[in-house]
């Protein structure tokens, strides 16, 4: 066992912040891993990258990536990122946050950013509950699941995030689990090379908080669920992309070309300034 060599991805991480705060078996580390893996494969200029996150366990990701990063208030990562992207379209702006942050308190921002087609890239780690606050029911908590606030089983219908994103107008929509690291990495690469609003949902294990209350005490057990249940159905109907204990539909669901808000805006600028000169 040799140890002198540094980890190949260490240059993408803020050594001062390592090790991360996440529990053993938590999928957030895999999301971060795949994200930097994609950066590595794309040889992306880190000086032009901005990572924005909201509140929640995964919200720490911004702090861990060795790029310009901002850890906003709960739910506000997307509008903050919108400001950044519009102010400097040269920047690659990536929002990495959780299901509660992006789709409960931040839900309105998400659908409008998608509608406007702002050129920001959103990765959502979906762990089915509010992990950081100790495991409360959230917008993606499956029906009948047990959480600290649904002790008798969840009676709220969860969001189908890929359906929501597709319906809101995202130009790229994919879902993978933390077991599909290769596809997730490729998917992130594809997303980073696209124009307009993109969204990837990563179904991620939360063994300590969610799993514990739902008969999946370890990360391995949750990963086994993913292995057992996930089926790759690329470009299938997002509205049918279910997540149940029997079936997790993963894949790329949307990949279309649509002019981004910022590009559109600057085209307009050019036009009106043409006119202005004529006057």
């Amino acid at each position: 066992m040799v140890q002198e060599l540094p980890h190949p991805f260490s240059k993408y991480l803020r050594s001062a912040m390592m090790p991360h705060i996440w529990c053993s078996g938590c999928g957030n580390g895999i999301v971060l891993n795949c994200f930097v893996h994609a950066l590595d494969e794309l040889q992306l200029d880190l000086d032009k990258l901005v990572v924005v996150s909201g509140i929640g366990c995964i919200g720490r990701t911004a702090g861990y990536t060795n790029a310009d990063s901002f850890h906003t208030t709960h739910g506000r990562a997307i509008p903050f990122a919108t400001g950044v992207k519009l102010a400097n379209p040269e920047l690659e702006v990536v929002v990495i946050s959780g299901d509660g942050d992006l789709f409960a308190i931040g839900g309105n921002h998400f659908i409008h950013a998608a509608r406007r087609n702002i050129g920001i890239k959103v990765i959502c780690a979906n762990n089915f509950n509010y992990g950081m606050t100790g495991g409360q029911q959230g917008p993606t908590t499956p029906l009948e699941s047990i959480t600290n606030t649904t002790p008798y089983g969840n009676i709220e219908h969860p969001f189908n995030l890929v359906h929501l994103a597709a319906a809101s107008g995202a130009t790229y929509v994919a879902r993978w689990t933390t077991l599909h690291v290769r596809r997730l990495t490729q998917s992130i690469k594809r997303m980073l090379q696209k124009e307009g609003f993109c969204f990837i949902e990563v179904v991620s294990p939360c063994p300590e908080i969610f799993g514990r209350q739902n008969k999946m005490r370890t990360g391995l057990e949750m990963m086994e669920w993913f292995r057992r249940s996930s089926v790759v159905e690329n470009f299938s109907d997002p509205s049918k992309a279910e997540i149940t204990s029997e079936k997790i539909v993963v894949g790329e669901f949307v990949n279309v070309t649509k002019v981004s808000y910022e590009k559109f805006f600057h085209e307009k600028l050019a036009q009106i300034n043409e006119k202005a000169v004529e006057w």
Partner: protein
Amino acid sequence: MTKKRALLSGVHFMNGDIACAEGALAAGCRFFAGYPITPATEIAEHLSRRMPELGGIYIQMEDEIASIAAVIGASYAGLKAMTATSGPGFSLMQENIGLAAMTETPCVIVDIMRGGPSTGQPTLPGQQDVMQAKWGSHGDYATIALSPSSVQEMFNLTIEAFNLAEAYRVPTLLMGDEIVAHMWEKVVVPHASEIKIVNRKKPSASPGKYGPFVPDDDLVPPMACFGEGYRFHATGLTHDEMGYPRTQSSEVQAKLVKRLCEKISRNEDKIVKVEEVMLEDADVAVVAYGIVARAALSAVRKAREAGIKAGLLRLITLWPFPEKPVAKIANQTKAIVVPEMNCGQIVREVQRAAKTTPVSFLSKLGEEPHTPKEIFESIRRNA
């Protein structure tokens, strides 16, 4: 270059909202994010036309929360950014005004005050948000708040607000009211070259060394922007000077919060602006701000005609509170009259500063501000 695309200059007839918008442009603001709300809507409408002409960004967000968040983002990306709203929107913004304070984000928030609470009186003036401007968001922090009382000042103070925001890396609030916003007046716009513009300090340290929250002697840290190669981190969590979360450390917390407040209080003298009228020999002083100050001025003149030695202290800066100017007049006058379009907000600060000098409060709520007569009566009573 055609006239339309340039910044304005010369003499113009406009309303307060437009003056504010033009002031922002003159100050170098190139990003506006907002959400329609009376009586601030014209600012957005005007900028939606003017921003593009000057190559700036205008965007209407899904709500005021998003608007302020976008403004903070734009500021970190290097643009001077502003949003404008009124009471209800101002309340929604408080969360991220706190974030702006915590992350020391230079930005301007315009609050055109209307009758509250809640939806209140959308089309009528008020001064009920001035305390919210100080205490609106949770936790201890300091902001700067200015109060224009004319359309000309809507223009001037907007520029001033940007300069202060940039100088002190602090969210700066322009607390206008429905009347100054909708009133049409003559505005003299100096040529761009004659307007003083302050820009944020850029770091001298190389990317490797740079800490985003390492303060200079004035307690204000130089500010790098995204994409400049500094690869820094900022967070709403309690953080050290490198910007990294230190949620468990009491000394980091104490150091940080103190500095956030002191970078304003220590620079109070440089920040605070007041207007003093006929105070040299005054027995009775009126302390007023915003639109009310204009009624107060004519009331003071009336009193002088009636042989009462009255004077006016007009607060241009509301926050940090002009402690010293108020204390000064308190020493030389018998009484102080404070008219406000609320149930008594700034008056408490005046009382605190005036110490023993009696302060009488003149409240006005509803569709119109105090008449000069009402204020005159109060002066006479206290003379």
